Structures are given as C-alpha cells and as structure tokens.
C-alpha cells in the first residue's frame, strides 16, 4: 500500500482555452511544476470526447515527465466550456471521484444560482470556501449538499 494513502493531489477547473478558473493544490509543488501540470492536464483532457473514458492515467513518460507522477491519474468531467479535473492516486476509486466532481458542481450551481464561468471568476475567493467545505487535506470532507449549502448560507450572512 502506498504510504501516502489515497489523497487528492490537486483540483483544477480550466476552460477550453486552458485558462485556469481554480487551482487547489494538496501536495507541495513548486511554481514551475504547477504551471507544467496545468498545461499538461489541459493538453490531455481537451483532446478527449464522449466516447473516451473520464479517466486519464498519466503513466507514459511524455505526459508529466517527473517519475513521481506515474502513480497519478486524472479524473475529469466537462460542464459546458469548463473542465473539472481531480488528480488522484492510480489505485483510487474512479467513479467515487467522478461523482465527487458532480456533487461539487451541483453545490456550486445551487450556491451561485445557475453557476457560469464568470461567477467563478468574480467570486474566486468564495469558490475556495466551497472547496474547503467539501474537500480538505486532499480528502473528501463533506458530501451532503444540504449540509454544505446550509453552512455556506450561514457564512454568507456573516459580516
């Protein structure tokens, strides 16, 4: 078993042009590594279509060339022009994370009332709060939409 155990490496929201709308890192990466990852995730994810799986294993060397990435995979889902990507251990449960993305998107949709890309741009600092409610330390923290939204509305009411 991997000593690190299961752990989300990062969560990325990108648009089709490759602009990052959220980047949340759960491991130490330096700025160059982050930039490289962002570009490579964009490169592998945008070429896939509906006939492909929602999982990209990043085993072959050309993608994510540093060897420590070889045990990672990216689980992603596309919503309109946005790609939501979660990078996890190769042994992690694909479908659980795929639905974790959807759960997160439904919360955003409810919180921002029909969320669109611009909401994430103008309220970037609130998106971080939503993420921290649902994912913390690279783990799933809370899965109940009711509970998360209740908490978010409570925070919203604070000065």
């Amino acid at each position: 078993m991997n000593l690190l155990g299961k752990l989300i490496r990062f969560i990325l929201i990108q648009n089709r042009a490759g602009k990052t709308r959220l980047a949340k890192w759960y491991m130490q990466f330096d700025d160059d590594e982050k930039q490289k990852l962002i570009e490579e995730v964009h490169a592998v994810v945008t070429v896939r279509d509906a006939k492909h799986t929602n999982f990209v294993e990043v085993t072959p060397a050309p993608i994510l060339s540093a060897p420590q990435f070889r045990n990672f995979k990216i689980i992603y889902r596309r919503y309109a022009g946005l790609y939501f990507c979660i990078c996890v251990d190769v042994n992690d449960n694909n479908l659980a994370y795929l639905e974790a993305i959807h759960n997160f998107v439904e919360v955003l949709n409810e919180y921002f009332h029909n969320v669109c890309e611009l909401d994430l741009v103008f309220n970037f600092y609130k998106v971080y709060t939503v993420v921290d409610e649902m994912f913390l330390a690279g783990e799933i923290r809370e899965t109940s939409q009711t509970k998360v939204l209740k908490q978010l509305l409570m925070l919203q009411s604070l000065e």
Partner: protein
Amino acid sequence: MPAVSKGDGMRGLAVFISDIRNCKSKEAEIKRINKELANIRSKFKGDKALDGYSKKKYVCKLLFIFLLGHDIDFGHMEAVNLLSSNKYTEKQIGYLFISVLVNSNSELIRLINNAIKNDLASRNPTFMCLALHCIANVGSREMGEAFAADIPRILVAGDSMDSVKQSAALCLLRLYKASPDLVPMGEWTARVVHLLNDQHMGVVTAAVSLITCLCKKNPDDFKTCISLAVSRLSRIVSSASTDLQDYTYYFVPAPWLSVKLLRLLQCYPPPEDAAVKGRLVECLETVLNKAQEPPKSKKVQHSNAKNAILFETISLIIHYDSEPNLLVRACNQLGQFLQHRETNLRYLALESMCTLASSEFSHEAVKTHIDTVINALKTERDVSVRQRAADLLYAMCDRSNAKQIVSEMLRYLETADYAIREEIVLKVAILAEKYAVDYSWYVDTILNLIRIAGDYVSEEVWYRVLQIVTNRDDVQGYAAKTVFEALQAPACHENMVKVGGYILGEFGNLIAGDPRSSPPVQFSLLHSKFHLCSVATRALLLSTYIKFINLFPETKATIQGVLRAGSQLRNADVELQQRAVEYLTLSSVASTDVLATVLEEMPPFPERESSILAKLKRKKGPGAGSALDDGRRDASSNDINGGVEPTPSTVSTPSPSADLLGLRAAPPPAAPPAPASAGNLLVDVFDGPAAQPSLGATPEEAFLSELEPPAPESPMALLADPAPAADPGPEDIGPPIPEADELLNKFVCKNNGVLFENQLLQIGVKSEFRQNLGRMYLFYGNKTSVQFQNFSPTVVHPGDLQTQLAVQTKRVAAQVDGGAQVQQVLNIECLRDFLTPPLLSVRFRYGGAPQSLTLKLPVTINKFFQPTEMAAQDFFQRWKQLSLPQQEAQKIFKANHPMDAEVTKAKLLGFGSALLDNVDPNPENFVGAGIIQTKALQVGCLLRLEPNAQAQMYRLTLRTSKEPVSRHLCELLAQQF
C-alpha cells in the same frame, strides 16, 4: 436575485476584475496590473490607517493578481493583520491569502501561528474551522510543531461542534502525513476509532480517512476499527434508498462513506471474529445483489454512485482472496460490464478483472470472457481501454489459450498505437516463450514480431530468441531455415538481419545441404543487406562471416575478399576496421584446427530470469508480470524461462571459445595492436582507445554479460523536427525532446554511456569530474551511410545557469561522413550550485532536410560531489546541526526497480557520496556523506535512504547546508530507485 452578486460587497474588486478582462493584450493587462499595484502600495504605505474593509479589498486584489500568474512581494503583513479581525469576511480573505501564498518568513509565521492559536481557542466554530483549514492547507512543519498537540484534543472534545470535528480530523491527517513524528499516539486514538459510531455522517466521513491513514502505520492500535467499520457499513448497505436523507445521493445511500469504509477494511486481513466476518460477507453479497436490481433512476449519477461501491466491494473481495464464491460472482458481474454501453464501465471492468485473473479461484472464470476482451482490443476507440484489454489478455493467458492470445496480439500490433507497441511486443515475446509447446512456434512468433514491429523489438527480445535457439538443439535447424526465408524478403528489418546473421553464423551448416540455401547463397543473401545496416549490425555480420569461414571453407576466398576491401580495412569506424583487420589476419594465419576451436559454436547460455520479463517489470513498475510469476507457472517451460538464479554448478562456465576469437588465451602473432574494446558493442563503438588489451568485443558477448542495455534503440526518438522550411537561427533552441529528462536520469549515477540514439544519430558520453571541474567527451556517430552537413552541436545555458556553470566547447567539423563519428570535448567548471542542466542542441542537414534536437547535457550538481568519510558520532552531530526544516528534503516513493542492496549501494556511490557503514542502527538503511564543490562555496550533504522491502517503498532524506540543494539532490536521487 442570485444568492451571490458579482463581487459581493467589494465593488472595487469587481471593477478591477472587469478591467483586466477587458484588456485587449497582455501588455495592456500588465499595465493595468502595475497601476493597481502602485495604487495598493501607496494605500498600504500611506499615513492614514486603512479600515478593515479596504484592507480586505486590497489584499483580495493582490491575491487575484497573484493567481493571474504575477509575483507579489508585499501585502503579507496586511493579510496577517486581517487574521486578527473579528469579522468573518476579513478573516477569511486573510487566511486565504496566507494559504495560497505560503511564505516561510519566520517573523510572519510567528504572527500567523499566534492568530491561529487565538482562533482555535475562540470557541467560535466558524473561526476555529478557518484556522483548521489554514493549517490543513499549509501543512508545514512549523505549523505541525505549533499545533499537532492541540488538534487531537479539539477532535475528541465532547463539546466540539460537528463541523469542527470534521475539519480537525482532516487537519490532523495532513499534519500526520507531513510529519508523523509530531503527532504522538495516545489516549485520544481509542476515541478517534469511536468516531466511526458518530451520529453525524460527515464526522464519520472525515474520521474514516484519518483512521485509514493512521492504521497503516499502527495496525494493532486501530484493530478495533474493523468491527466498527463493518457495522457502520452494514447499516448503510442495508438501509433503504431514502433512509439517510442528506447523505443519499441519487437514491444511493452514502456512496462516498461506503467506499471509504471498504477501503479502510482493505488495510486489514479478513476479520478473525466469525460474527463480524459473517456480517461483512453479508454486506458484500448485498452489494453484489443490488447490482442486479433494476436501477432506481436512469441518471448516470445513480449508476456511477452505485458502481463506485460495487467496484470497491470487488477490490475488497480480491484483497481477501479467500471466498471463491464471491470471487466468481465478482467476475460474472464484471463480465456483464465488459459489454456495457458506458466506456467508463468497460474500462473499469477490464482493469478490475486483471487482478481477478491472478487469483486461483477466479482465473478460470476470467478466461471465459476471452472473446469479449479480444473484441475490445480490436474495436475500442479509447486507447486506454485497449491498453487494459491487452493487459487483461496477458493476465489471463495460460497454456490452454496462449496460441489464440498471442496471435490476436500480433494482429493487433499491426494497427496498435505507437505509445503501446513496445509493451505489446514485450508481452508477446514473454507469452510466446512462457507457453511455447514447440519451439518452432516460438521462433515463428518472434520473427513475426520483428516483421510486424521491428522498430519496437528491443535488444532484450532478440537477444532472448538467440539464447533460446542456442540452448535448444531441437529448434536450431528450424530457426536457420526460417530466418533464411525471412531474409529473402526484399525489405527486411535490421533486427531481422541481426538475428539472421547470428543464427546462420552458428547454425547455417544445418541447412547448407539444400542447394537453395548453400553456403554461397547464404553468404550473398546476408551480404546483400550489409550496406544498408548500421555500424553495430555490420560489426555483427563481420563476425558471422568469420564464422562462415570455419563452417564453410569454400566461402573463405570470397569472404577474405570482402574483408580485404578498402571499405572494410580502411573503414572510418574503428570497430569495423578493427574487426576486418583481425578477422582477415586470423583467417590467413590460423590453422584449420585453431580456427575450429576459436570459432566453435557458442556454448549454452546460463539460465536466468528472462531479460524481457525484467524489462517489462521496469516498464510497469514492481508487480507487473506477477501474473506469470505466481503459482500458475508451467513446469515444462521452466527449462528455458527459469526465472531462478542457477546454482553455481549449473552455470556453464563459458568455454575458452566463448571469447569468440580465443585471443585472450593465445593471441596470434599477427594480431594487430589496434585499440580494442570489451563488453557491450554499442557502447564500445564510441569507447575509443580503451585500456582492455583484448579483442573480445563481439556482439555475442553482450548476450552473455547481460549488461544493462545501452540506450535501447528508440525509434520513437526520431528527430522530432519534420523538416521546417529553413534552418532555424542559432539563437532559438527548440525545447528538449520529451525523453530528455529520462535520458538525463540515466546519467545521474554514472558518467559514461549512450546518451541518445535514433535511426540517424548516436551520441555517446564519457566524462570525469574532480573537485569543481569536469571534462566531458561527446561522441556523435552518424549511423547512416549519408554525410551529415552543417553539423553543429552547441551547449546552451538557460536562465541563470551562465553564472553557475561554465562550459567551454570546441567546434567540431561541420561534416560527418556516413558511418563515421566525431568527438567533442567540453571543459566544465561549477561556479556555484545550480538546479537545471545545460542544454545540448544538435543541428545538421541529412539528405537536404534540416534536423535539430535538444537534449539535456548530463551534468547535474551531484557530479561535483566529493565523498567524505566520517564516524557515526560526527555524522549525527552534523545531522543535528542541519536541523532547520528548510535544510531537509524528504521523499517517500515507490520502488521502480527491484530492491537490491548491492545495486542500491552502487547507485549511491555513483551518485557521488561516501557510504558510511555502522552509522544507522538499522543495517538495511544506507547513510552517506559528501561535499559538493563549487568555485564559490562548498555544500555539505548528508543523506539517508530507508528501503522498506515489504511495502516496496523508499524514504529518502537529504540534509544540506543549502535549501535548494537538499531538494534538488533529493529529487535527482529519488528517481534512481
């Protein structure tokens, strides 16, 4: 009215973001940002004290600017001030800024920690959560030291709110992962386990993650979690689809919690308590039953959530590997998914079935799906799905279906994606050998491999077929006949020429009776390929020719004529020239008897683990190929593919004739004093004058020595540049080729070898380093028969490297003749520590088309290591002196190669440090020390490597007096194991 309006209360921020979005160009954006930065700076510096709102707004703007990718060098103090605000919105922005822009400024850390401490003690759950999230997001050692003791208390305190408990559990998890030593187990651990019983499902969700992590290191302390997890799981699985209300997701009760509980159980063997085990088996059966029920919703979310649990259940069943009934049911369920319309499910079913195939209970059940899997290999659109299908075919292969699987894989190979061809070739080669009933089938299969995908047939594969043919006299005649036929194809792959040359040189006599393959016919067939081949192959053919002189005296005159030709005797390539000269002399001075002894048939190869299997394992990491290693091995094929180290008595010591020319024993009087080389041919080609005073370098010897193969001929690395319109100017250097890092990695622990090779060019390296100086010889070999023009290799220093490393190069001749090589000398001086290697850019014109190639020059900081011996006491004293967190770098990583202590030692010594014995109390561990010598400064380095054979992991710790050096060395070295 949306719940959140744009900018929500921070109008200035929204305006700024709009402005940025409206910028038409990058320049305009930078201009707008600089204006804003100047404005914020003046506000922060102004005399007027800013109110909380303004501070929040400006800090938030700075954060936005940072996230756009610009550097921020001020505002930290204002952000820290926000932490002590008593307004949530201000505090939140402060914490967010700190979490995103972590800064190890010690003065600030003290202030930040102080603010966190206050919030943790505030009894305000909102503030406590903010503080906990900040610790979890930053996760630094300093924070661990400050708070690791408080957080368990908050986690188990009776009066903590549920949301605080959730955050505390995961915050503790983060600190434990970062610095396990800081989190002492204690009385709280028992109470953490009982959180599995908590009423709040969110608390359970967070707690399971924490327990799963803690129990891996302390399985006994957390054993009680098994029964609690089982009963929790049982309650969820048996609940109706709406019982759990908030935690029901598309009619599936608590899917994520179920998955986490099932994963926790995979940390332990099956429960010992019969009642607990019974209850668990019931759960697993319930999940399998539910999979057969009609879906409660047509939404994909419903089926995904349900199947997430199902796949995790199957993982647990496979982990236990003790319930035949469940294993077979799992297999049947996956079988249904193999034809599902969802690509995701087909992919996951193939992946999961792969592990089922290695269980003795389910192997047969998996085999029944062979046709579906073969179909997947042919028709799936997503390459990763086809890859899984190929993996599964490999895993389910045994004696009964080997012929079918191998022929399907061969067929697939013709159209397979480039990315996976090499792996398929290895798999076919292994299966063909493993399950060969008759060896003629094996020979046919390998020759087919070369025919279909010759470029992807690595040396290991064709060496192996030669070993097997040499060792089995019942197949030698067939092999000779088959290669002879294969060589008659008008265009045959060079690898075919190599195999053919070798086999005919050894066993050509077995088919010489047939006039259609008489000795002169064999010779002229081989020689017709000679001129199209690379230096290495031509060298091999020359050896075949001298063997022919022994096998077929009638060919002697013809062959001597060929050897005597100017193109051989005066060949620009030293290896070819040498062979021609020596073979010619040998054939004329040695008597027939001497010739017969010297050129005798090769003795059988010692049995050893298949080099191909080793290669596949390297490719896939440890555990690959295990399906073949486990109990299902066929005894009858062991004679070839033993996989077992032979006992000394069974190793056939190479007879004197293994040294092909026998010259080591008795040099013929006329042996020319030409420089000779030993060992691996492809390296030798560039080895230049070497010390070894013998002639033994024949390609055959490489099979015996089974050296680490020189850079496998990688046709993937064809010069990437598809003929641009004009030669690029000298300034713009292309990015390094994708493999550059991998190639560089091979040289971290060694100084000589082949740096790069493709069909046109081979680049060899020899280098030596002393103190802060180094000298490197680069050998550029033109593998083609056409002259390279405008040949210009240059060394480039990206970024600051110019100030860190001085490299002097000499220009080389602008023309490189076909088959020739040129040498370039580099003088290197390390001025100060550096992180990135210089780039080597090679350009030339080949047949009119410009080619260019950028590699990383194998000069890494560790080359300037000077080993330092020291006693245990001194070591520990220095270790303690380097105890600042930034002086230490640590990595925990999976072993990519078999964990062999001797190999590890050699690598560490190659890395440059001294190895210190009797320092670490654990003899399994390695401890090293050394000094990095640069002109400006010396950097003392201590290292410790702890292998964990059971987990197939290593932990590597580096401590040096310079922070980036620790991290960099750690990264370099971690990639070597």
